[in-house]
């Protein structure tokens, strides 16, 4: 391994720049926004999971004093059945619009039907109850296998299965079928001494961010639309608004306020276009807030899935073939993350013969949305459980079998890409060497499990400008909304280049009129790509400042070097000036210095994680307790280690929730029966131990400091690791998520 670079700022743990605002309650989140003359909006939602909308009569609601305006799908421009490019992939515009306000059919309970603006939120809510909607109720279909049956209720008459370039000839709930092939799958299984094939089912889960969706919109008479909101990406909101409202992008300004969690769930828009329609109709600013039930029922969860995994290995533990069928629910409209699941399902292992089939299936549930490594957790639950069973069958340590088959630089994934330098092996070794793995865990009904995970990470566009202040500090302007400390991790990369402390960089997240295009905070891309842009913008500053130093000393620019925050002249006289001192002399050397950079970096590098968990099972009640948890992960280079640890710990705990209790529970009519934080059971701090983390640093060759995105991969291993630990504790293989107490009791034959 090459020698580690010494950094002054990178790898330290400064106080985050937005920290004081956030611990004093002063930070302004979306719902906190106030403006004179504000009206309040509420959305009426479908009580039925599947129904034709026969008529909507708003007259009684309009007559309620305090009601200022009502909108329905009629107020949206007629949407064409065409694909719209929204940066993160193309989306059918009609589906996009219908999900904002249903035009002809309600496709899930909670589907938005109409919205009211009123002088206060209580009146708006009351008015919603006075809107008369006539529905023709249709039978719902809620599960992918049922949705694939020939006689299943059909959600969309126009969907024909798109399968490997062919289009089906009759309406289907299977929107698409994809396939990745590598090698010869039959040959691979023939070479195997052991073949294990299992089926897995996972439930629908929600990102569970604590802040509900919110939007405040204002239309000016000059046609300018401004939307204040919390979002993972102001520019994607602008794009979606432009498409849905068929409105010029130049007339839309999106102002991102502080955001209270997203995890992928705050990329798609829901109430932002509704607020805009109400603002246009009333001529007043309108704030629309969701309540918690709206969030569960009216925004995108991540899909339930039905997965089969078949893996073969030789007696020495070498995997020879792997095959899977990934059937993911898309929700009401096509577009599940099955593609990402297919990219990740076997990616951690170098397997010669692979066959992956993925199916995107519509059901009467909310249109699914990304959730932290979308698709990969579902897939890894299957793969990592079968690998555990293979290791057990072959009497091989579960980490050893992963070491033996783990992907390395130069190995090719089944979906095509060849890995650059990656740190999977290092993450397994870190787990193996951790005291946790060596500790004894021999108590009755206690068990230990391990699992690994891969997430590809993304790059995409980021823009940064840096203005140099006369006191040697800089103002850094960026477009990446800060969900978890990225102001700090981005500012630190600029500070490192400029040779100034992190505290001397003032990062600000600005609106869509004030910075170049910047893609969403998602895909584990922000510290990587916006950080890279900050690095480049800082290099731009350095370059310009060199020119100023050259001017000051009347030497050639080529003769100026910049080391440790000092500009100096290489030859001639011994001249030297600090970044700070030179900052004070910009006026006399040509005026302000603004560094700028836009990036769309390709080398995101992949992230790998390996987790070890100890559990105790109460065999009388089926309850699983997490006793100890250790997560190792290749972060490439941890810019701010505390926030890398925080990402790992947060991801692990979301994975624990997914593993043990979280799921959408439906009744026979297709209504979610647990749409509250009371009954959608996310972990509390009393359910958990401390989460130990080991940051492994195998630098990403695609980033100047070696950064790899860290946010997503830690959610992937926990369900499988916990399933494997439960097996170790009680000898029962759990193949359905969540592994809730009643399912454990059933699996143990107690009920």
């Amino acid at each position: 391994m090459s020698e580690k670079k010494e950094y002054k700022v990178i790898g330290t743990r400064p106080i985050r720049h937005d920290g004081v605002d956030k611990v004093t309650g002063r930070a302004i989140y979306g719902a906190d926004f106030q403006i004179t003359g504000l009206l309040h909006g509420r959305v009426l939602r479908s009580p039925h999971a599947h129904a034709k909308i026969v008529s909507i009569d708003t007259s009684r609601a309009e007559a309620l004093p305090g009601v200022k305006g009502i909108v329905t799908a009629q107020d949206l421009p007629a949407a064409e059945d065409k694909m719209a490019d929204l940066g993160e992939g193309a989306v059918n515009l009609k589906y996009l619009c219908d999900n904002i306000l249903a035009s002809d059919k309600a496709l899930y309970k909670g589907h938005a039907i109409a919205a009211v603006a009123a002088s206060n939120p209580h009146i708006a809510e009351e008015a919603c109850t006075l809107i008369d909607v006539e529905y023709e109720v249709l039978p719902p279909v809620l599960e992918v296998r049922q949705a694939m049956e020939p006689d299943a209720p059909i959600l969309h008459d126009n969907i024909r299965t798109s399968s490997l370039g062919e289009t089906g000839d009759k309406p289907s709930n299977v929107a698409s079928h994809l396939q990745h092939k590598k090698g010869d799958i039959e040959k691979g299984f023939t070479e195997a001494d052991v073949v294990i094939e299992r089926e897995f089912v996972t439930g629908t889960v929600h990102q569970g961010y604590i802040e509900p969706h919110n939007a405040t919109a204002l239309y000016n008479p000059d046609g300018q639309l401004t939307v204040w909101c919390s979002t993972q990406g102001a520019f994607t909101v602008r794009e979606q608004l432009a498409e849905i409202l068929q409105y010029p992008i130049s007339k839309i300004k999106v102002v991102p306020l502080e955001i209270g969690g997203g995890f992928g769930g705050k990329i798609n828009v829901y109430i932002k276009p509704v607020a805009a329609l109400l603002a246009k109709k009333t001529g007043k600013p309108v704030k629309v807030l969701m309540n918690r039930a709206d969030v569960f029922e009216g925004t995108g969860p991540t899909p339930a899935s039905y997965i089969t995994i078949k893996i073969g290995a030789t007696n020495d533990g070498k995997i020879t073939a792997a095959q899977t069928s990934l059937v993911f629910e898309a929700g009401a409209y096509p577009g599940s993350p099955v593609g990402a699941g297919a990219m990740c399902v076997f990616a951690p292992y170098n397997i010669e013969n692979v066959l992956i089939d993925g199916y995107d299936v519509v059901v009467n549930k909310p249109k699914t949305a990304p959730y932290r490594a979308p698709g990969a957790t579902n897939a890894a639950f299957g793969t990592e459980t079968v690998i555990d069973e293979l290791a057990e069958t072959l009497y091989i340590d579960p980490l050893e079998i992963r070491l033996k088959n783990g992907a390395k630089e130069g190995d090719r994934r089944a979906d095509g890409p060849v890995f650059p330098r990656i740190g999977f092996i290092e993450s397994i070794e870190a787990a193996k060497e951790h005291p946790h793995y060596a500790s004894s865990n021999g108590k009755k009904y206690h068990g230990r499990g391990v699992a690994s995970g891969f997430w590809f990470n993304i790059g995409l566009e980021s823009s940064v400008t840096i203005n140099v202040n006369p006191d040697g500090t800089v103002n850094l302007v960026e477009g990446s909304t800060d969900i978890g400390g990225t102001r700090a991790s981005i500012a630190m990369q600029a500070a490192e280049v400029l040779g100034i402390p992190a505290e001397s960089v003032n990062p600000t997240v600005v609106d869509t009129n004030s910075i170049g295009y910047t893609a969403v905070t998602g895909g584990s891309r922000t510290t990587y790509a916006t950080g890279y842009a900050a690095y480049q913008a800082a290099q731009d500053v350095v370059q310009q400042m060199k020119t100023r130093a050259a001017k000051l000393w009347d030497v050639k620019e080529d003769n100026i070097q910049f080391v440790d925050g000092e500009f100096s002249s290489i030859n001639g006289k011994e001249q030297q000036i600090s970044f700070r001192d030179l900052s004070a002399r910009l006026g006399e050397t040509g005026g302000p210095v603004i560094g700028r950079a836009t990036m769309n970096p390709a080398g995101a590098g992949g992230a790998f994680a390996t987790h070890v968990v100890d559990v105790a099972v109460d065999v009388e009640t089926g309850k699983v307790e997490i006793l100890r948890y250790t997560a190792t992960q290749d972060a490439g280079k941890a810019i701010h280690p505390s926030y890398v640890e925080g990402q790992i710990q947060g991801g692990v705990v979301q994975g624990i929730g997914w593993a043990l209790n979280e799921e959408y529970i439906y009744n026979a009519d297709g209504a979610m029966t647990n749409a509250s934080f009371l009954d959608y059971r996310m972990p509390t701090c009393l359910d958990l131990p401390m989460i130990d983390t080991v940051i492994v640093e195998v630098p990403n060759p695609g980033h100047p400091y070696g950064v790899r995105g860290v946010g997503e991969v830690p959610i992937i291993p926990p369900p499988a690791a916990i399933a494997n630990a439960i097996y170790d504790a009680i000898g029962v293989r759990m193949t359905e998520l969540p592994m809730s107490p009643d399912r454990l009791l059933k699996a143990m034959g107690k009920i």
Partner: protein
Amino acid sequence: MQAFEYINAKTVSEAVSLLYEKGDKARILAGGTDLIVQAREGKRTLGWMIDIKSIPDVNELSYDSETGLTLGASVPCYQIYAADAVCNAYPGLIDATTIIGGTAIQGRAGVGGNLCNASPAADGIPPLIVLNATCNIAGTNGKREIPVEDFCTAPGQTVLEKGEMLVSIKIPAPQQNSSSYYLRFIPRNEMDIAVVGAGAAVVLDDKKERIISARIALAAVAPTPLFAEEASTLLADREISEAAIDEAAQAAQVIARPISDMRGTAEQRTHLVGVLTRRALNGAIQRVRDAA
């Protein structure tokens, strides 16, 4: 939320007159942790909320080793478990008050409200049943007293008639060699509603080897919290043994009539009644034995 009037009543007679006058659109506001949510979610139609927290009678928290505990209807959980004498005398009640909601809920919610809300899954009710508690009810026609196990009649329904309110709960002083225990099963460790709850109180002989009498009560397995009378009677005058406790647990399972819902399945609940009844009985017995 629907519009309603708020009235801050100062006396029991004022509150019951208002209740009588306004009829079933008037509700008593104590801790509000259920009522405000139900009003907000439209589960109850409300015209008036009558706040009783300024009425001295409903704030009473007094314990006497001879006469027992008087617990005002609006006394919040945190005051109950802050009272050492109450903790020593009725540990089963304390088990419940420390698990109702989180600490912020316990700052407002009380056992009286838990009773009047009449949820089948109420954690506060089984301990009251096993402790032989009675309800002091006041109405426009005077006062009456009824056993806690007869108070709830259906989910959200109680014996309270027009113009009646719960003023306080009376728990007799604990007998020699007695103790109580309550536990519930929830998938998380906090913030959940009981999938099943079980409370037990036992009186042992001086050697602490025999059960003189026992009372068992269950939550979340029927339309109201249940007094498991037969299971309780089975243990009277029995040597403490695994077999005796198993018998009682089985008898408790027989009377459980659980439903399946988002919190648990009927078969899971029936199974848990057995498990929790055993644990509650063993817990109560252990407490007697641990006492000096």
